[in-house]
């Protein structure tokens, strides 16, 4: 994310500057040169039962000079408030399906993953089992790693049918994390809606694949005396939900926190307005960016690994203990 913009925001309100960068928005703001904002207006799509599906442009809802959203710039009964929320003037209920900055970013990530993986797959279509070349030599080691080190080790003998999901998850999160580090990019994998969706998909996948042992473990934990079950069963049921919740929070926090640290160092430059701080901050930003490259990969790995472990616990045949 981030470099290069915003003397105004940064200089006066570092919190606003940072939040502006890590949160979703209805327009994609790249830079401010002088008083000109370089932005990409994005579609605002709302559905309400009385008015049906409606399409607008985010620039309809803002001041054309300052690009500020507000209730005073309402357009056809809708407005975007200063917190980038869509609202309806008459207060009736509606659903917001807007293509926000993160949605565009997500399509970008999907496009890159598709391009990367499909061009790798093309190799196998053309050359069969020949040694990998080009995109395939990047993708194949990851595929083998996810299959052997993550899926096979965590899930056990029934790992095969889960490998495609784990691979998709890994590539989506990894590419999302990496692209999120680019200046001006959206904080896609650090958005709670994205991580929540992925966590819910994992939750569904785990629980529809849960076998007898898994459910028995939840509702009739073996080896626990009856009175204790009154305590254990609720805890186990809560445990079903805390697992995906942890997945959701972990990725969101790890990526967002990294961005906040980088942005905070950049904000320091504008707070102190000093060359020496500028040099030190830039060095620190570079250093943290490198760590973030590592974190991007580790978080993708961790999300995939934990998903595999939850699936493993749902499909494992255990006769035992624990």
């Amino acid at each position, binding site marked *: 994310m981030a470099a290069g913009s915003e003397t105004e925001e940064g200089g006066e309100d570092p919190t606003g500057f940072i939040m502006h960068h890590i949160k979703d928005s209805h327009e994609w703001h790249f830079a401010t040169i002088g008083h000109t904002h370089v932005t990409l207006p994005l579609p605002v799509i709302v559905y309400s039962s009385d008015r049906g599906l409606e399409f607008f442009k985010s620039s309809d809802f803002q001041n054309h000079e300052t690009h500020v959203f507000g209730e005073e710039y309402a357009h056809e009964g809708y407005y975007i408030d200063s917190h980038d929320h869509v609202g309806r003037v008459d207060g009736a209920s509606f659903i917001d399906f807007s293509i926000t900055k993160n949605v565009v970013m997500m399509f970008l990530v999907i496009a890159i993953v598709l391009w990367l993986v*499909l061009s790798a797959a093309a190799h196998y279509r053309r050359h069969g*089992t020949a040694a990998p070349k080009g995109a395939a030599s990047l993708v194949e080691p990851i595929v083998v790693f996810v299959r052997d080190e993550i899926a096979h080790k965590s899930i056990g003998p029934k790992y095969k049918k889960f490998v*495609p999901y784990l691979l*998709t998850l890994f590539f989506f999160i990894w590419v999302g994390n990496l692209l999120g580090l680019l200046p001006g990019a959206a904080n896609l994998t650090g958005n709670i*809606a994205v991580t*929540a969706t992925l966590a819910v*998909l994992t939750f569904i996948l785990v629980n529809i694949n849960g076998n007898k042992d898994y459910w028995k473990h939840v509702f009739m934990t073996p080896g626990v005396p009856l009175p204790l079950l009154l305590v254990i069963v609720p805890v186990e049921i809560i445990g079903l939900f805390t697992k995906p919740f942890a997945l959701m929070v972990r990725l969101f926090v790890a990526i967002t926190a990294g961005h906040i640290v980088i942005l905070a160092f950049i904000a320091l430059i504008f707070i102190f307005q000093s060359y020496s701080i500028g040099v030190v901050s830039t060095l620190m930003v570079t250093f943290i960016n490198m760590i973030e490259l590592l974190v991007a990969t580790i978080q993708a790995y961790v999300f995939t690994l934990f998903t595999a472990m939850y699936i493993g616990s749902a499909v494992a045949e255990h006769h035992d203990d624990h």
Partner: protein
Amino acid sequence: MDLILPSSGLVFWQLIGFLALLFILIKFAWKPMLAALEERETSIDNALKSAELARTEMANLKAENEKLLAEARLERDTILKKAHESSAKMIEDAKQESLKAGAQMIENAKAVIETEKKAALADVKTQVATLTLEVAEKLLRKNLSEDKAQKELVDEFVKDLKLN
């Protein structure tokens, strides 16, 4: 937009986008890729196995060759030994044969010599008898004429005899 409240729009698009990505990749990428990888792994496995097999076969072949070679060597040795023995026997036989033949020849020669000797002796005996008869005849003839002359004559005859 809030930091920790998921927005409905993003959840919606994320769900659609991710599921679309999932299905496209499963159909067009992961299945063929995983199948190709598995196929390659099996073919590598098979190749390794057949190499192992070829190696053991090679070793077996070599062992067999060595066995054959050892057998051949043994046979050669036996043949040589036999040939040696038979040649020695032949020489021995030939020696015996020649010795026998030699002995036979000597025997024959001896027999011939014996016969010759007997014949010669017989001859000598006849001649001696003849000579004796002649001497006796001459002696008888002279003896009748003179004594002295008889003696001389005898001497003469004797001398003649020696010369003969």
